[in-house]
């Protein structure tokens, strides 16, 4: 969808990833397919070298600042350097949704 494309474009531009996965996980969080509210990204980039996990995630947030201020409600991030990805190309299992969005009184 359009948000997925925007996310991909922004991450490509900001981080020149060697590997990039952008997954719309909204269906796993109670939304209809294509809702584009909850995303998971796997970003492999040399830019992450020497940075703590917190710093890496902040780089990803910075690239997606506009989206995060808007429709992007949740973002799961895996951020690795190319060396780390080569030695461990696996992503940890995602926690199951507990329907949090349904408990919101109104959109945030």
């Amino acid at each position: 969808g359009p948000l997925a494309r925007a996310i991909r474009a922004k991450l490509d531009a900001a981080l020149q990833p060697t590997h990039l996965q952008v997954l719309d996980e909204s269906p796993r969080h109670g939304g209809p397919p294509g809702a584009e509210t909850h995303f998971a990204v796997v970003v492999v980039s040399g830019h992450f070298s020497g940075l703590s996990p917190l710093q890496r995630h902040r780089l990803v947030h910075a690239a997606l600042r506009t989206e995060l201020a808007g429709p992007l409600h949740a973002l799961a991030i895996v951020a690795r350097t190319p060396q780390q990805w080569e030695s461990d190309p696996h992503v940890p299992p995602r926690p199951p949704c507990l329907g949090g969005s349904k408990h919101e009184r109104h959109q945030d």
Partner: protein
Amino acid sequence: MSRLVRVAWRLAGATAAGRGRAGRALSQAGTGTGGGGGGAEGGGSGSGSREAVERLVRAHPVVVFMKGSPAQPLCGFSNAVVQILRLHGVEDYRAHDVLQDPDLRQGIKNYSNWPTIPQVYLNGEFVGGCDILLQMHQNGDLVEELKKLGIRSALLDAEKEKDQDKK
């Protein structure tokens, strides 16, 4: 070491029943938003102001801002944080339900310059969200950070028992 690496997601509910002590949300104790769901307060002295948030993150070595409560998380990512802390035997911590307090929800995002919930603070310092806590759990960093706070992770005792069994 396998227990450190694999996290089986357990949903809250039956296992959490009776753990009433764990993290009663301070925002429910009347920090200024009054009764149920009252109107949003303005900036300065509201529950989302920098000063108010600062007080909350410094109130305890382990502070979590989440959706729902430790006994009843309302979001998978928030539940993940609760489960990880539980694995380490950390049951005494401050948990704040941002769904109960829109001012706090926005305030905490401004304070940490972090766009999402949950948020974990150790010793008043922002550590990250669910993904980062999971990483720290898997690579052993969380055990170390808890040690610095004077908290002995339950996983250390689990490891010790395993070693003793081997002898």
